[in-house]
């Protein structure tokens, strides 16, 4: 299987949101002059879960971006045929020019990661920085991650790295192409 991926290390993510703003800046998702809170597109979001009760608590943080699904529901939903999964990289891409703004993909995406540009009527989302990675660069979020919680590469290789570092894949979070790992215990 050819699949590029990002591996999110739950031992290291601190939920700082640096990746979100860096990604927004890179893709020009924010009108710095006029944007107000609550109105800006974003290709990643931070989630967290705290378990236990005081004082025995555990908390994990991680980021959710497009999972570049194995069988993407967004592709199936799009009647205009604007979405495809790239054969060479496994990256799921939306073609802005083909997109008719029907928002079907947004309804069907289980991870709620597709953004909509109302002014220009197209759907857009994380492309795993396709235009960077094909030139040998890392995705923006991986490059800037404050805690070095993210790594990029071919999914199989990332799995090997996780194993070598003694980290386990969090199975229920890693059902698609993005990997979530943490140390046991």
């Amino acid at each position, binding site marked *: 299987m050819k699949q590029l991926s990002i591996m999110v290390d739950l*031992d*290291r993510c*601190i*939920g*700082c*949101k*640096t990746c*979100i*703003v*860096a990604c*927004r*800046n*890179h893709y*020009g998702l*924010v009108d*710095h*002059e*006029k*944007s*107000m*809170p*609550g109105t*800006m597109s*974003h290709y990643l*979001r931070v989630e967290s879960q*705290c378990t*236990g*009760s*005081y*004082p025995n*608590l*555990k*908390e*994990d*943080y991680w980021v959710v971006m497009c999972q570049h699904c194995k069988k993407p529901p967004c592709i199936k939903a799009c009647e205009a045929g604007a979405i495809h999964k790239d054969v060479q990289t496994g990256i799921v891409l939306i073609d802005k020019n083909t997109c008719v703004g029907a928002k079907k993909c947004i309804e069907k995406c289980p991870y709620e990661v597709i953004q909509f540009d109302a002014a220009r009527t197209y759907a857009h989302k994380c492309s795993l920085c396709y235009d960077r990675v094909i030139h040998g660069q890392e995705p923006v979020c991986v*490059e*800037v991650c*404050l*805690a*070095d919680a993210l790594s990029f590469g071919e999914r199989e290789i990332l799995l090997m790295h996780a194993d070598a570092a003694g980290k386990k894949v969090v199975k229920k979070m890693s059902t698609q192409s993005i990997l979530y790992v943490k140390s046991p215990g």
Partner: protein
Amino acid sequence: MHENKWIPTVCYQCKAECAILARVEDGVVREVKGNPRARGKMCVKGMAGITTLYSQERLKKPLLRVGERGEGKFKEIGWDEAMGIMEKKLRELMKRGEGHKFTYSMFPHSTTDPKWRFVNAVGGFISTGLPHCDSAKIMAHLHTFGCFPNHHIAPMYYTVPRGGIMILSGRHPFGCLDDACVPKHILDAKERGAKLIVIDPIFRTEASKADWWIPIKPGGDAALFLGMASHMLKKGIHNKAFCDKWVREGDMEGLAAFLKDKTPEAMSTICEVPAKDIIKLAEMCAKAPSVSIDAFKSIMYGNAMDWGHAWSIFLVITGNLDNPGGQPLPEIAPMAPVKPAPPAPNLKELGYHRTGPNRDKFNHYNFILEPTWYAAQAVKEGNLKVFFASECNPALSEMGSGEWRKAMTMKDKKGDYLLELFVVTEILPSETMKWADLVLPDQTNFERWELLYMPWWYNFGHTAAVCQPVVKPIGESRHANRVMIELGKRMFPEFFAFKDDVEYYDIELSGVGMSMQKMLDGGALWSPGTVGFRKYEDAGKFNTGSGKIELEWRMYADIGQQWPSPELPLEFRRDADTYPFILVNFRTIFLNNTGAWSQNNAQLRDSVSGLDANPLLLNPIDAARLGIANGDTVTVESSTGKVRIPVLFTEKIKPGCAGLIHGFGQTMGKVASRGKWISDNELIADAGSHLDEQDLRGGEAHVSTRVRIVK
């Protein structure tokens, strides 16, 4: 000029001053990131700095007040008129022999910040929030082992060895403010086998990554560390060889006698950490190859000097000074002086900050800067007549902000304001601006020149970085440094004979064989790359009076403060029945404290990429007792203030504590004024009129209070 490339410069979205790269395209900053040559990280605030730069709310022209102070009504004026107003008033003040009644509230970006030079030339003082942030830590380290008083002096986490212990006691370094690389360095140290211990009444990200979270009663840190020290001395597991060699004769015996009754059991009753845990941590520290301690919030309470003292003692008896993984004793880059320099006025004689009820007793304790929060009292007493402020927001950061607002608007019999002139430089609308007579549009780090060379925070080796303008300035904004240099040229040409800020930095850089041009040619960075360890061994002494480590503070003998008291700060000890909760007010990575430029930054106040809410955090156990439901709006009341805010239940806070983020509450600016969130300082007592015992034990700190919560 800087088309389509990454330009090395410096971030200043907070005071950490991280070295960064900015990508400029068509004259617009598009992207920013950490500079890989200087630890390589930039945090979310820094990333969002572009939004500050281009915000439509940027102040673009000087503003002159037209209504009363507090109304926030202004008209635009030209720079000449603005300069004239400042010059006229300062000349008048100096003519009256009252130059010392001029104060500039700022955070100096270096020991030779040009603004500081201007203040010295007038004969006034600079004041900062720095005294509450860490004056006690600085003073404690200075008194005990003569460490150079730079800001924070955070441990160098990249030097922590395998098995080393990193203690964060009321400290949230994942919120950056030291350097954006710190979270990575802490996590890296953990991966190589160091242990992270978090002592904190609130469970935050640091605690979630910790090997051990120890919830503590706020203000109990001194007791906890004295309990550990007592146990170590009793068991003889302290670093005897280090103490024999370096501690002043007699001090170890004095310490042992003082610690005799500070047993883990006795200290446990104060700090609410079980005695067995105090013993366990002491024994872990005794065995570890290194121990680092950092504190921030915990050293802002009314027992800050005691806690700083206990902390210093603990570092000494475990031998953790200037060793890998321990407490660094950094040096500062030897920049060349720009001569002639105006002499600083005598702070002790002319300064205004000893205004509390215990003024005479408090005279013992001396810090190099005025704390901002005595300003209100100084205005009332006629000791402060002209006030400038840059990169600070006293209307929100002043403890007892109500008193501050009152002081700004107090008038004499003739109907003139007691404070004759109040000037604020700002990038975006700020709360403080509402009370200003003159508002000067300042520049962001993307538009200005600056030389940064303090070993601030995390830049340990001798290090310097150049902040250079990467785009044209917005509107008529001018950097505060340039404004003060120009005013200096008008008023004190002898002290401002250099051409401009760039030439000023050029002269300074000659001290390390550099120039601005050489710096820029070399990537805008300079550092010889070594910090050195155990420098006291080379010197054969510590920088104290005796050349040895001085555990006993003999200069405080007459006020009974030669050894640290384990007691909780007074503000938590008194009125526990009336005000059962202790306010835990903390900071986050998304806000530069009360800084207007992060409060009014759309990305930092967005719930996806920042933080847009500041409810009162309560443990469900307490909430159940009070009969409050999650989301209810409650009244939170202290002995001096009262606010209404919604409640959020969380298991992440110690019962008996109420959590609130520091820095909200601004009413100026479209972004900042969203939501009904409040400033913690509305609840905290004004320093001038309410400090008593804290004057002696706290240095100058007291940023919290007890509160009661009613539905």
